[in-house]
């Protein structure tokens, strides 16, 4: 028999009470483990989403969104300002325009459909190339039969039109130099088929003859019915020198994205709409951070509960064995020995509670994490995917993030397990400290008092 074995033996002195203490401890330790697991899994996911968010920043003139809305394009000075912003490593500038039937000899490959018709109903009849000559008093007068137009994108980087975020697929011919100013174009595969264009053939636009350099495919019907030209070419042809309607800037490192965004916001004020992938990603993981915080609160709460359980149990036990402690001191036991014996007893209860609780936590942490995550997801998905216009790759990436949020996998790492054990020991120590103080205050002379 030594101090430790007496403590261990004492822990089983009142099986019912010990059982209740162990059960309560097991529940709080189980909760601690599953909350730690939820927290670390969610944090891992947040880090993952943020690191994969990329470093692109989109800058649109205020009010311009694709072909809809108004607004004034950026001037070359404004573009220079963007390029001069620190940490921006490269930019892709784009100018969008549309070719009506008077501007070109090409036939649009787009069917207007009811959506297209509605979009063009505001256009003045003059702007429309083929005002119906048989304009009678029927509904045809208010809804003239418009012809669809052909979208032209002038860009410094033809790859930015690709919908997959990578480089543009050229199905025949070769790509164009975006920074040049030649009268060349890439033609979408649908438009090319409709007008029997192949690399080397020519068409007329803005009164000039343009040579087809290559045919591209994106898989997107709207894109594949369009034309891509070097930015400078389109600027000259449309008499908008230096103007751009869409800029994508690449930041040198993800750490600098926020700085770039705020620098741009300072430069442009309300003249530009600026969005970063990282910003969008941060909004989309906001609910995950809430879960992480909730889980941390859970860990703290369960730790306090566990410590209070041990503390109250040990205080109760010490009070009950007051006389016994006095006797041990009277026959020559030191306070330290008595304290060690009670700590051993508290540790025994805590360790049994921990074994049961950690087992419980392992079983419960998976379902707990996924239920915490799914219950907070409905609000998240709605915040992504509102950006239209040429920044499609960008948008797709965010859509991907949205679906990934529901796929937080809970995993019990050794670190998480170690922290759970550390917290358990903390519980035992806190739970024993106060009773130890009580023990040291018990005077051995009390044993001679007959109450």
């Amino acid at each position, binding site marked *: 028999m030594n101090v430790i074995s007496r403590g261990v033996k*004492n822990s089983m002195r009142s099986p019912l009470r010990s059982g209740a203490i162990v059960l309560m401890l097991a529940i709080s330790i189980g909760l601690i483990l599953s909350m730690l697991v939820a927290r670390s899994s969610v944090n891992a996911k947040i880090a993952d989403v943020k690191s994969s968010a990329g470093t692109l920043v989109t800058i649109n003139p205020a009010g311009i969104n694709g072909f809809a809305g108004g607004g004034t394009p950026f001037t070359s000075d404004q573009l220079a300002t963007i390029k001069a912003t620190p940490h921006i490593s490269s930019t892709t500038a784009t100018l969008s325009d549309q070719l009506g039937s008077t501007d070109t000899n090409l036939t649009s490959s787009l069917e207007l459909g009811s959506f297209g018709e509605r979009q063009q109903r505001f256009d003045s009849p003059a702007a429309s190339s083929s005002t119906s000559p048989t304009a009678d008093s029927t509904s045809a007068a208010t809804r003239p039969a418009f012809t669809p137009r052909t979208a032209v994108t002038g860009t410094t980087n033809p790859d930015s039109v690709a919908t997959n975020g990578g480089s543009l697929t050229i199905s025949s011919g070769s790509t164009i130099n975006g920074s040049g100013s030649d009268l060349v174009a890439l033609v979408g595969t649908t438009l090319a088929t409709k007008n029997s264009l192949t690399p080397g053939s020519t068409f007329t636009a803005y009164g000039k003859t343009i040579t087809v350099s290559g045919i591209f495919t994106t898989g997107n019907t709207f894109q594949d019915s369009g034309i891509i030209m070097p930015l400078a070419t389109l600027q000259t042809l449309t008499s908008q020198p230096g103007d751009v309607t869409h800029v994508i800037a690449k930041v040198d490192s993800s750490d600098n994205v926020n700085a770039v965004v705020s620098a741009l916001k300072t430069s442009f004020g309300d003249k530009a709409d600026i969005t970063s992938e990282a910003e969008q990603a941060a909004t989309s993981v906001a609910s995950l951070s809430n879960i992480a915080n909730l889980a941390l609160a859970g860990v703290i709460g369960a730790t306090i509960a566990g410590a209070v359980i041990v503390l109250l149990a040990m205080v109760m036990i010490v009070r009950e064995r007051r006389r*016994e402690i006095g006797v041990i001191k009277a026959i020559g036991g030191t306070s330290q*020995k008595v304290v060690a014996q009670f700590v051993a007893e508290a540790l025994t209860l805590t360790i049994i509670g921990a074994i049961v609780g950690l087992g419980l936590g392992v079983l419960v942490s998976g379902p707990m994490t996924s239920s915490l995550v799914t219950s907070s997801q409905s609000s998240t998905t709605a915040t992504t995917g509102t950006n239209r216009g040429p920044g499609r790759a960008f948008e797709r990436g965010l859509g991907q993030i949205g679906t990934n949020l529901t796929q937080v996998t809970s995993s019990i790492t050794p670190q998480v397990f170690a922290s759970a054990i550390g917290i358990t020991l903390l519980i035992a120590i806190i739970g024993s400290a106060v009773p130890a103080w009580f023990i040291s205050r018990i005077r*051995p002379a009390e044993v*001679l008092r007959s109450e």
Partner: protein
Amino acid sequence: MLSVKNLTKSFNSPSGTVKALEDVSLDVDTGQFVSIIGKSGSGKSTLLSMLGALDTPTSGNIHVDDVDIAKLSSAKQTAYRARKIGFVFQQYNLIPNLTALENVMLALEFGGVKSRERKARAEKLLSDVGIKADQQLRKPSRLSGGQQQRVSIARALANRPAIILADEPTGNLDSETGQKIFELLHNLSRSENTTIIAVTHDLDIAGKTDRTFSLKDGKLTKLSKS
């Protein structure tokens, strides 16, 4: 040799200061069997707790073999209790979840006896006070009052103390059993030359001891057979 000089102990209670012992002086020779009598509240237990270093006096000296135990540090007092003193209580005060044997071994542990020697020594002590082998493995709740008091005497003797302090050791026992316990203590003081100081209500028993001190309101009133 135990020598007490001008021992005073007062307690601060909500109703004022209580003088439990007032200017008590006495000498006890080594190996003597001494009894202390007195009414309830006269300070008998307080005197024993001073002699056993369970508490420190307000003033005065207690010399045991030329060491003033009233002036020892609390760690030294604990060591003094473990090696020099054996306590026997009215309520036996055995540790309830330890067997008779383990109770005696506990005292041996505190006395610094090597762990592998404890068991044999405890068995010898218990059989010397009349506790049989099967009874030695029982917990106190499964022993009679007389048997429990024998176990507690074995525990008190464990470290061959200089002094055994017994506070009404027969108080909870019927007179016949009390008589036997008394005889056990008496024989010990003879064979081991252990000083025994026993508080008792039983004047019959007191009459058989070497000396009897009488306490009244914390003061020593009568020295008989001195």
